[in-house]
Structure formats: structure tokens, C-alpha cells
């Protein structure tokens, strides 16, 4: 088994029992399972399918449809670069190029040491301070390419 399903099994079971009787339980369960495990690998999806009594294909279909769910482990720090309209016209693609170069990964990938993952998101609601980057839960606004390396270094 490539992942440790047992790590949070008790919580996972409770969660499934709690959500199952409500209608439309799958997405809330996936949200909370991803919070527990960090990502949603195949084993976990299958376990959830069994628990909820629905086909594995349904679970897989939902996981791959929604951008928020990931089947691969993410880095400790999630670097979300905004490519919403305001950030795009205010030049955030330059910051993306710089981030990509600094981290050595493309958008949607994680660094091999799992320190960072680089993601592109669409509007984090800071349009008047574009271009913006969100790292974990903190936001950096009016970012210039030259500041990128320094900002990254703040996240161990």
C-alpha cells in the first residue's frame, strides 16, 4: 500500500458515518478526507466508495472533475499565483515565470522535497492590489518579480 490509510482511519470512519445519511455526502466527505490526509489517492477513494456504498467510478469521476481535489501529495507550502483577470493584466505572468524558475517546477507541480507546490488560481479577491500571490493562508499583493525569491524564503 503506497499510503498510510490507517493514519486517520478512526476519524475517516466517523466522518463517513456522520455524512452518509445526509443527501449528497460524497463531496463533503472528500473535502474532509483531503483535510485529514492532504490528498486523495486511489486507496482512499476506494475506501470512501465502499463506506458510502457507491461505485468507485463515481468517486474517481468527482475527484478528477473538481480542481480543488488532488490525487498527488502537495508541498508543505502551497504557493497560489493568481491569474484572474486583474492579476493577468497587471502582469502576474512575469511573476509566474520567476516562481517557476526559482522553484524549478511548472504550475501544478511540487518541488521534489515537498517544500512547495506551485498552483495557479483564479482571483483571490485582491484585485485592487494586483498582482497577487497567496502562500498558504497569507497573501502578498502588488508583487514584483524581483521580490519573489525573498517572499519564498520566508516559508521553511
Amino acid at each position, binding site marked *: 500500500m503506497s499510503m498510510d490509510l490507517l493514519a486517520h482511519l478512526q476519524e475517516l470512519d466517523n466522518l463517513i458515518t456522520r455524512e452518509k445519511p445526509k*443527501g*449528497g*455526502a*460524497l*463531496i*463533503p466527505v*472528500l*473535502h474532509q478526507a483531503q483535510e485529514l490526509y492532504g490528498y486523495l489517492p486511489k486507496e482512499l477513494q476506494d475506501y470512501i466508495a465502499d463506506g458510502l456504498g457507491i461505485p468507485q467510478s*463515481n468517486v474517481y*469521476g*468527482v475527484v478528477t*472533475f*473538481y*480542481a*480543488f*481535489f488532488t490525487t498527488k501529495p502537495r508541498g508543505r507550502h502551497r504557493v497560489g499565483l493568481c*491569474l*484572474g*483577470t*486583474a492579476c*493577468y*493584466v*497587471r502582469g502576474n*505572468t512575469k511573476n*509566474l*515565470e520567476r516562481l*517557476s524558475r526559482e522553484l524549478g517546477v511548472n*504550475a501544478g507541480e511540487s518541488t521534489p522535497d515537498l517544500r512547495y507546490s506551485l498552483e*495557479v*488560481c*483564479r*482571483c*483571490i*479577491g*485582491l*484585485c*485592487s*492590489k*494586483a498582482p497577487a500571490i497567496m502562500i498558504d*493562508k497569507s497573501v502578498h499583493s502588488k508583487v514584483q518579480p524581483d521580490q519573489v525569491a525573498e517572499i519564498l524564503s520566508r516559508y521553511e
Partner: protein
Amino acid sequence: MTLKELERIRAKAQKELAVRGVEISPDSELKPPRPGEVRVVLRNCGQIDPERIEDYIAKDGYFALYKVLNMTPEQVIEEAKRSGLRGRGGAGFPPGQKWFFARQAVASRPAPADGTPPAYLICNGDEGDPGAFMDRAVLEGDPNSVLEGMAIAAYAMGATQGYIYVRAEYPVAVEHLQTAIPQARRLGLLGKNIFGKGFDFDVDIRIGAGAFVCGEETALIDSIEGRRGEPRPRPPFPAVSGLWGKPTSVNNVETLANIPQIFLNGADWFAGMGTEKSKGTKTFAIAGKVKNAGLIEVPMGITMREIIYDIGEGILNKKKFKAAQTGGPLGGCLPAKYLDTPIDFESLAAAGSLMGSGGLIVLDENDCMVDVARFFMDFTQDESCGKCPPCCLGTKRLLEILTRMTQAEGTAEDLQTIEYLTENISTTSLCALGQGSVNPVVTTMRHFRDEYESHVYKKFCPSGVCKGMFHYEILADVCNGCGVCRKKCPDKVIKGDKKVVHEIDLPNCIVCGDCYKACKFDAIAIRPGPTPKSRLPERR
């Protein structure tokens, strides 16, 4: 809860609020109202603590619900219709009408024998338009106004269970709702037998998972049911058969936040604002190349010029206005000739754009309209759910063509193909995502055709955006040799002595644009033709 108790809470909370003031950090996008603004939906944002229901009651919260529960549902629907309020989620359909259809559908079926709700009310807080965040501001700053609006709507249509669908990217909004809902239940403003009038209503939160199409009402219903969010063909409309096959009304956050005010102040008060067919106010998120960006609320019928030049204080860096993009990825780009058109649902639609949720991005002379069209197509192509071929395949082909054009590989035939494809996609797609996806392309083709032709025939991007399709030149008769560009140049390819005309060593210039941005004297011009080192931009 009785009216007396509610009045007592209000009196106490008003005193408290006056002494305490509000210590919460205000939304950074929401400044105090500027001249020309009228705040209805945003009136409490930043004025009250969103995590205290008493603060909301201090501002007459839940008094509208009391008033409504003393009316018949038919009267409520009538009053909502009379106010002239139209849905703020995009389509502009009157909510009173929606509740009327749902109510009819409830009446036409037998009451559910299994104890399940006869109908559902859904609040759409998915807000996927990149560049719009007014719903977030309301959910974060005044969640109770949305809950009260939902309760009123539910009473009118005959629903007993509500869902509020919030996107996962808005954790603070979710948090504030998770506080507000139990508080309302505790005071008996949600739950069983509200105000002792025999009306039951409760609300659950559903969190989105990052799919733009789930803002579309039938896809949203699928998503709540726990499936992939794929729009359904209509009819049946959700009002007849929606969530779990029951009559369902889907209303936007801003729409619902208007409702309590309409019942507090009367339909006539609301209908007194706005234009003939679009009443009330609208929130806009202004951003882009504008000086004073942020969230505003203005009466319908205001002109774009008033928004951009008066409230927004004009264009950044003394640049020229080129276009305003409204309606998000399904909206369009409007050129300067529309600056003085009063904004309402009809006028924006007539101009080929949309009211949408209210994003308004200002573009200046350095924004390339072909690239903007490509940007939006990249977004919709990415978000197309894949159910119907015109949208799924058509947007892909359009994106390929637009990408080609911005890489100096567009052909005359491409221009024709665009026209053919946009026509087909807009008329044959299943839902409004596909139908609207072509709007950014159609409007830029209509209003900025010269830019498309320049890209295709001259391989020249006149705005200086598409890499490899232009270079910079220092104008000898304007340059005064100040040296700023020389110092800014990262590759040190600008040469010249102080007070002497400078020159760019073109074969080594990477066309990064730093000198162009730095020059205070407009002495650097955009010229056709690439330099050997101007590389193609990175694409997602």
C-alpha cells in the same frame, strides 16, 4: 422569538454597538462609500461585527422576516415583483417570478409522505468570475442579511430547507456562515415555527470544489447532490424539478441580500432607484488599469465614465483608456464609445456584453485585445465541463487559433474560422457557459478588428504584449538622455551618455519592457518586427 423580544434585542444591541464600535478589520477592497455610491447590499459591511447576530439585529435585521411572515406568500411574491428586482447572478431573471413558478409546482404535487422538504431554496455563492468578489464581501461582512433573504424567499416559494453553496476559496465566508447559522437557530430565527407563525426553515452550507461551471444553476444542483457538476438541458426548469427532483429556486447572494431591504423599506423605495427595466443598485468590482480600484455599489443606470473616471479616479499612469471588460469570461469588452451609455441589463446586452456578476476590468492602450480574448478563452476552455461537444471542442479550437495569432502564426483563414466557430458555439452549446464563452472573442473582433488584422497580416502587436511581434525604439527627437531606461535595463543593452539620445542594442534586446515602463517622457515607441532574442511568452 416574538416581535417584542426582537425589539428588545435591537435596543440593547444598538446601545452596545454605539459604545463598542466595530473593531473588526474591514475588507481591504471595501473603502468607505465614495461620492456617487449608494449602499444597499453593502450597507452593513464593515459597520457591524459579522459574527454577532445582535449587531445585525441592531441594524433592523430580521424585522423584514417578521413583516413577511405576517403576509401571505402570494403577497410576498407580488411585492418582490413590484420592486422590479432582477437576479444579480447574471441572467437578470426576476426572483419573484422564480418563486411564483416554484410555488405553483409545489401546489401541483402531493405533499411528500416521507417527511422530506416539499421544495428547496439554494443560495448561489459560487462566484467563479475571476475578478468579482462582491458576494464574498457580503457573505463575510453581513452573512445574516443573506440568511434573512433566504428565509423570506423560502416562505414565498414554499421551501423548508435551504442550501448555501460557497466556493472553497472563501474560507472566511464559510467560517462566518458557520457562526451565523447556529446563532440564528438559537434565537429561533431559523428552525421550526419561526416567530410562532408555523413556518419552518433551516439552512445547510455546501462547499464548492473549484469548478466554474458549478455556478450554473443546474450544475450547482448536481454538485450538491454529490456528482460532477454538469448542466442539464431545460425544461424541466429547476423551479419545477430541481434538487432531488423537487421544485427549487436558485438565487444569487446579492439578490438575496437585497430582499430584506425591499421588505423593510417597501417595493416603491427600491423601484425608485435605477432605470426603467433595471431597478435598484448594483455592486461592481473595479480593477485593472484604474487608479482607485475596489468594490463599489452604485444605482443602476450610472455610466461607465462615472464609474471609471469619477469613482475610479481615472486610468493609471496617464495612459489612454482602451476598453472595459464586464461580465467576466462570458461577458465582453466595450470600447470608449460606450463610456456614456447608462449601465443596465439591457444596455450591456445590446453592446454584446453582460452585467454578469459585476466584475469591471479597465484595460488601457498597453493591453492587447487579441491576447485578452485568448486569456478568457483559456479560462472557459479549462472550465468547460465536457458534456456538450460545441463547448468542449469548439472552445479548444478557438483557443488554438487565438494562441496562434498571439504567436505570429495567425492566417487570414483563421479570421473566418473564428467567425464561423463563434456563431456555432453560441447557438448550439447546452448551457450559458458555452453560449457565452465566445463573447470576449466576438466583442473584441467587433470593436477591435484592426488589432486582429494587424496580428494576422503584419505580425505586429501594436499594444506591445505578444512577444516576438514587436520591438522597442527610442525616439531620437523625444529622448532627452535622462538615463532612466539605461539604468532599468536588466541586460544592459541600452547605450548613451547623459543628456545624449540613447539607443537600444536591438540584436541583444530581450524586449522585457522595463525601459518602456520606466520612461517618463514617452520617448520609447512600440515598433513592428521581432528582435532575435524576443522569445515567446510562457503559456499555461
